[in-house]
């Protein structure tokens, strides 16, 4: 939060809203930098969602995850989704990054920062964007299990254990 890019503040509180940043990246996602991107003097609430790689899925021990994207389309779909809640609310500010490549347990795979004068629109937008991202953005993940097997995750397949 105290990174140099966090200040100086814009002097007007009716600073432009909308989608300020969308990227599909290979390097680690800087969450503080993403928060700073949506901040301005008129913001009263920031909702940040992080997806992280966890060590268990469907009851199997996971050692890591490989993310792959259809790069150009992933970027444009992400941008379209991020823009949808902004279209009806000019006070909303959104920044999104999704990481691809090989991730370790605990690494942040996706970060969504939504800011607004008030909390409800910021929180609603973050939820909308992660829900739609999982439905519509051409990104895939392959789980690497401790036993050496690698499996591409298919959310449309019947779950082996209840979700």
């Amino acid at each position, binding site marked *: 939060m105290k990174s140099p890019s966090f200040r100086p503040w814009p002097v007007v509180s009716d600073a432009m809203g909308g989608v300020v940043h969308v990227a599909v990246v290979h390097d680690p996602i800087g969450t503080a930098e993403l928060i700073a991107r949506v901040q301005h003097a008129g913001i009263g609430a920031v909702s940040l969602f992080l997806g992280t790689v966890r060590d268990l899925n469907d009851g199997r021990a996971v050692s890591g995850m490989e*993310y792959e994207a259809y790069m150009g389309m992933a970027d444009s779909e992400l941008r379209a989704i991020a823009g949808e809640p902004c279209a009806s609310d000019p006070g909303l500010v959104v920044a999104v990054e999704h990481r691809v490549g090989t991730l370790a347990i605990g690494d942040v795979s996706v970060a969504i920062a939504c800011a607004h004068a008030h909390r409800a629109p910021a929180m609603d937008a973050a939820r909308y964007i992660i829900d739609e991202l999982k439905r519509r953005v051409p990104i*895939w993940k392959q789980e690497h299990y401790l036993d050496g097997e690698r499996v591409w995750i298919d959310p449309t397949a019947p779950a082996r254990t209840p979700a």
Partner: protein
Amino acid sequence: MTTSNSNHAGIPVLLFASYADAFGARTVQVPVSAPCRASVLVDAMRVMPGGARLPEVPLLAVNQTWIDLDAVVQPGDEVALIPPVAGG
């Protein structure tokens, strides 16, 4: 557009993730000629090695936009067959 060459060789289709694994390639040339309905393209892929892996209604993008299977693929289009997405 210089699409006649690619038409002779079929329509190139981009593959990702599990589909790239199934077909053993990140691009396959599908032996149909554009323009053609996307469903025709998909049916041609089903009989290619790895094509049995495709679901009944696979996802498809043309020029990086989602399309239905009854849409028409034009010469020069960037066509991608999209596995079930799993981002986040």
